[in-house]
């Protein structure tokens, strides 16, 4: 039923015709107010929040009709050529990563500051409590709001940037931290930067430049997939399995097709059966290829059954209800150990899936690697310790759900605009499924509202493309929050067993890691995630004899895949807990014991080459890679001082006399990660000069909110001697930009950044040659580029604008441009010290995390503000893994907490204190010294909290997460 509503929209009385069931969200977006964004249907994310009569409310759980007669304000009302002071403060502090929910935060701030010009931090956090952010940990948004308040009050504020700290160590050796040494005093949002003497001062690199997409994001301009609409766009919806394991005996789509407004119904009967693996990985995708677009079997609750394209979402949903499916329900199995037992249901019994290691036992892969002789090592050990851990299933939870829009362009090529981390892989993987050649497929990646690995997958692009092909109309497929939980991707649950032999003095002599990984019903990233678990679980510590033994198992849980950290968080939780417990058993200080064994500069990384997609045998290697840079001792010293590590020995602090049910503790974890996949991850870049001496830079690299476009732009600007604003970055579009493997494996700054550096150097050489000629200098190599000019040694110069104009219009006409690509033979390790301070309520088991400190050696942080933002957001995601996030199921495998709230992620008004230290080292293989920073924050929080609980209470908890009932049970065992 169509109704008319009247409201004052951004100050203008407006009459709107809409359907009675329309939400205010859908009505506003249809009017082009794209700053108002979809995250859920129940107000649980806050992405859709606007002001109604001056109050922040969610428009996804509000009918447009309810707004009739009211005033509605969106962030577009603030948009002028110049930024509003609130927008400017968000830009200056790096308060947005993807920026998906930034407009809602800005509106909330505007409303708050009208009533309270000087709000307390608690008030600010309370305002933000309804807007979930998976990226910033709210640290920089809180800073932005306090600065905005000061600006609006007329107060002076200093420019935002890092605070430089003197080093506490010589870079190599440990120091004793003096408890009297005061912690640096700065706001939590400020990165603490410990510079290295090896790093020269630079003009753009190392500076807190604002993100290149900042203006677009704070204004709520078109940015994300759903912000662009094709004419005549249909809505695609997916029918999902209610059963964990069932055969589809028949599908009758006649009632659905008869519904007016339905344009296509697709399922196994009318879509070709072409095998693929959905993980977004380099060619050739690892086996097994165990999926098809629409199968005759469903293997988890939420698995695909059929898809519909219709004129509206309501018609599409009604059509789903009219599809008659006959299922033969099969027994299901959810636990990875039970799935390997005889008699367990066989999940892939179809004949056309090849390369399953042991189909009858559901073992998809068996992975092994060994160095030295582990049995001999155990025989030589004075003590052998064995310990089993169980880690659970969690999700990435991007606030923007998966979304793809597909259409045939005027040349009838398939175009898919999609929220993906892997546009080039998606193109290559999609083409055969829709019967096209790669040249007839184009993938456009706009801004992405968070990915964290969930979008390193060709997840729904094929559905949108099949529907677009069937209807010859543009089709949008967007998951709702429940679908995002049940049918996108998650972290692999695992059962991990460590067995470690040590000598009496605490030296490791043998270490074995046995993992049974649970990949749900499909392989996707199963092989590679588990190999990373082995790699990360057996690399941090020197040991002459090591063995990795792993089975990866099919079950009927929702599908695990890539999730930031990619197998490392599981393994490093177990490793750092295991090492902690060995230290206690040996009567050694845990940090001293770990330090005695951890890798240092020059240590061989001996298991690394034997695991992964490019695994080699020992005789194929000339030499093992080694640790090339490490700032771990400085990280430990800075972290100890920041958390006031000495307090843990004070009985009054551990057991506060006025709070008899509280025990306090602190924990530590040593963290080591990788930077890109050697010989595999590749990035390309092309740079061309414009008439005014600015540059366009095209990269295939995929900024998913991390600031990659900004960081790569800074690298090019540094080489070319211009401001970041003179580099116009565009990423990524498979028709336009160079190839890039995509945003994963902590590779973008290192790989794509090096490609940009190489491309910029080629451009620089051409500029120098032309400048030398223009200035009458014989040696082009003597020319220097800085301040947007080319300088001769004698002080004369020519501007890049003059130079470009000459090149385009006057002499020796040419387009000055450079293209380069890069793949690395190395994988330099970032290191970090993670500290956690916690309180345990010993009567209830409730753990409260008070403070997290991470000191990271990521080489040279190209942009300390975006780098620290990565650490802040990553630590809090890791905190969710450790503390409160979990998939819960009923007996039939249906997720019972497929909503945010029941699935608990941290919100702004309950955050622990955080501090981030960026400890510089000069990594010679990286662009301007950079290593990775994106994933290492996921590695240490869970073990640091676990070890803190152990220190506080004596309870050893080897399962995640540390929810109240689990901790309470462990405490009872201790007593």
């Amino acid at each position, binding site marked *: *039923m169509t*109704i008319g509503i009247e409201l004052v929209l951004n100050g203008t009385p407006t009459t709107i015709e809409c*359907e*009675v*069931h329309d*939400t205010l969200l859908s009505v506003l977006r249809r009017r082009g107010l794209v700053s108002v964004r979809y995250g859920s*249907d*129940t*107000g649980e994310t*806050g992405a859709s*929040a606007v002001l109604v009569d001056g*109050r*922040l*409310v*969610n428009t*996804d*759980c*509000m*009918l447009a*009709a*309810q707004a*009739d007669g009211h005033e509605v304000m969106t962030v577009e009302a603030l948009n002028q050529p110049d930024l509003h002071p609130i927008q400017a403060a968000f830009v200056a502090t790096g308060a947005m990563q993807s920026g998906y929910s930034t407009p*809602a935060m800005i509106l*909330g701030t505007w409303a708050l500051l009208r009533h309270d010009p000087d709000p307390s931090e608690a008030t600010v956090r*309370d*305002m*933000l*409590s*309804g*807007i979930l952010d998976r990226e910033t940990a709210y640290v920089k948004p809180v800073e932005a709001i306090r600065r905005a308040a000061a600006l609006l009050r007329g107060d002076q504020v200093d420019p935002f940037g890092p605070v430089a700290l003197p080093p506490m160590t010589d870079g190599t050796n440990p120091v004793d931290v003096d408890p009297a040494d005061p912690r640096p005093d700065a706001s939590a949002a400020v990165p603490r930067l410990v510079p290295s003497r090896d790093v020269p001062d630079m003009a753009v690199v190392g500076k807190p430049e604002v993100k290149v997409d900042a203006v677009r994001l704070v204004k709520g301009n078109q940015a994300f997939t759903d912000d662009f609409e094709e004419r005549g766009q249909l809505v695609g919806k997916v029918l999902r399995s209610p059963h964990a394991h069932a055969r589809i005996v028949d599908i009758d789509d006649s009632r659905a097709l008869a519904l007016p407004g339905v344009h296509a119904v697709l399922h196994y009967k009318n879509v070709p059966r072409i095998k693929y693996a959905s993980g977004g990985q380099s060619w050739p995708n690892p086996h097994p290829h165990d999926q098809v677009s629409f199968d005759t079997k469903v293997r988890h609750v939420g698995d695909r059954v059929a898809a519909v394209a219709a004129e509206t979402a*309501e018609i599409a*949903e*009604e059509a*789903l*209800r009219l599809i008659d499916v006959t299922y033969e329900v099969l027994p299901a199995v959810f636990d990875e150990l039970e799935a390997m037992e005889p008699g367990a249901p066989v999940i892939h019994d179809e004949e056309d899936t090849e390369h399953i290691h042991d189909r009858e036992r559901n073992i998809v892969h068996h992975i092994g690697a060994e160095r030295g002789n582990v049995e001999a090592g155990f025989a030589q050990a004075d003590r052998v310790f064995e310990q089993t851990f169980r880690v659970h299933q969690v999700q990435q939870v991007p606030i923007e759900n998966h979304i793809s829009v597909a259409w045939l362009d005027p040349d009838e090529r398939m175009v898919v605009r999609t929220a993906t981390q892997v546009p080039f892989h998606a193109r290559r993987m999609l083409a055969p499924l829709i019967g096209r050649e790669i040249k007839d497929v184009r993938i456009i990646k706009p801004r992405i509202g968070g990915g964290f690995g969930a979008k390193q997958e060709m997840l729904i692009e094929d559905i949108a493309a099949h529907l677009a092909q069937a209807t010859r109309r543009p089709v949008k497929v967007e998951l709702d929050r429940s679908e995002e939980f049940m049918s996108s991707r998650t972290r692999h649950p695992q059962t991990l067993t460590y067995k470690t032999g040590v000598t009496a003095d605490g030296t490791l002599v043998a270490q074995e890691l046995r993992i049974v990984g649970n990949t749900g019903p499909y392989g996707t990233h199963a092989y590679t995630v588990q190999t990373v678990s082995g790699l990360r679980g057996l690399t941090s510590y020197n040991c002459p004899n090591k063995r990795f033994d792993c089975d990866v198992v099919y079950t009927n849980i929702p599908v695990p895949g890539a999730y930031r950290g990619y197998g490392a968080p599981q393994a490093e939780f177990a490793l750092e807990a295991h090492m902690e417990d060995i230290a206690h058993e040996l009567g050694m200080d845990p940090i001293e014991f770990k330090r005695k064994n951890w890798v240092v500069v020059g240590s061989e990384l001996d298991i690394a080459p034997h695991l992964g997609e490019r695994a080699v045998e020992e005789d194929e290697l000339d030499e093992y890679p080694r640790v090339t840079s490490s700032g771990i001792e400085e990280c430990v010293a800075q972290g100890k001082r920041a958390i006031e590590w000495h307090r843990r020995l004070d009985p009054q602090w551990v057991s506060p006399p006025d709070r008899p049910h509280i025990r306090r503790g602190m924990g530590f974890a040593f963290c080591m990660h990788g930077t890109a996949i050697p010989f595999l991850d590749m990035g390309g870049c092309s740079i061309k000069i414009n008439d005014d001496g600015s540059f366009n830079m095209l990269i295939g690299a995929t900024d998913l909110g991390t600031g990659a476009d900004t960081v790569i732009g800074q690298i090019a600007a540094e080489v070319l001697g211009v401001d970041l604003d003179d580099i116009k970055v565009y990423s990524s579009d498979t028709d336009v930009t160079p190839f890039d493997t995509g945003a994963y494996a902590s590779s973008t700054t290192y790989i794509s950044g090096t490609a940009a550096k190489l491309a910029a150097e080629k451009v620089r050489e051409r500029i120098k040659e032309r400048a030398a000629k223009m200035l009458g200098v014989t040696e082009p190599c003597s020319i220097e580029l800085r301040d947007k000019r080319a300088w001769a040694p004698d002080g004369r110069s020519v501007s890049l604008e003059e130079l470009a104009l000459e090149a385009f219009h006057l002499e020796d006409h040419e387009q000055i441009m450079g293209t380069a690509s890069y793949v690395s033979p190395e994988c330099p390790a970032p290191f970090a010290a993670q500290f956690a301070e916690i309180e345990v*309520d010993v*009567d*209830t*088991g*409730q753990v*409260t995390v008070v403070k997290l400190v991470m000191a990271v050696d990521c080489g040279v942080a190209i942009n300390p503000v975006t780098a620290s933002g990565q650490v802040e957001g990553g630590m809090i995601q890791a905190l969710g893994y450790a*503390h*409160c996030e*979990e998939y*819960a199921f009923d007996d039939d495998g249906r997720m*019972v*907490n497929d909503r945010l*709230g029941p699935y*608990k992620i*941290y*919100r702004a*008004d*309950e955050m622990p204190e955080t501090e981030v230290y960026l400890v510089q080292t000069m990594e010679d293989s990286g662009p301007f010294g950079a290593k990775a920073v994106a994933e290492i924050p996921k590695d240490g929080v869970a073990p640091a909290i676990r070890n803190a609980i152990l220190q506080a209470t004596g309870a050893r908890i080897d399962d995640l997460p540390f*929810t*109240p*009932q689990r901790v*309470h049970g462990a405490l009872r065992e201790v007593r």
Partner: protein
Amino acid sequence: MPSVLAYHRPGSLDEASTLLAGSNRRALAGGTLVVPASRRAVDVGVELVDLQALGLDAVEARGEHLALGAMTRLGDLATDERVPALLADLCRRELPSALRNQATIGGTVGAAESDSVLLAGLLVHRADVERHGAPAASLAEALAGAGDRGIVTTVTVEVAGRGTIAATGRTPADVPIVAAVARELSGTVTVALTGVADTPVLVDPGDPTAGLTPTSDFRGSADYRLHLASVLTERAVQEVTR
């Protein structure tokens, strides 16, 4: 079948009552629960009757009581100085900011959710529920399902006393697995618990688990919930009588 068939915004309680008497009608307060539930595809659609134009959003003192209009938003109650401190705090705890600005006190009573700390607070403040065309009932009766006919117009609470909450959750702002809300007035302590029954319930502070048979879920087994009920009741009582 479009799930929302019509939207009505009556201007009087009588008109609203007449509308709600039709088949498949549902009252719409803040809408945070009703709107998402009503928009799902279903066999039979609903007509929504929005109560926003009935003037039910006033807060007024009535002697020793405070009358909270059913359409008052929790966000407004959280900052209203006339509202007892415990209830203002629980309005803030009940929901995060934006949802709090939408949800109403009447809607909270209507939803009767087991883990609502605000309902526990209203129970210990001896709330009565007034409905249009029906006699007032205690909140405890209303939650038990008695007299659930008629539009909720007002929730009245006793103002006096001081209160506290003791709760256990996964994180500091999590919806508590179990919460004990206590109020002390003239030496008498009243306690209500969440998370141990189908709705929040008043319990005997001296024997808080008597007669309780909680349902287990992934956040807490029945036994664990009973354990929390004992521990948290003791803490809340201790705090409020200190």
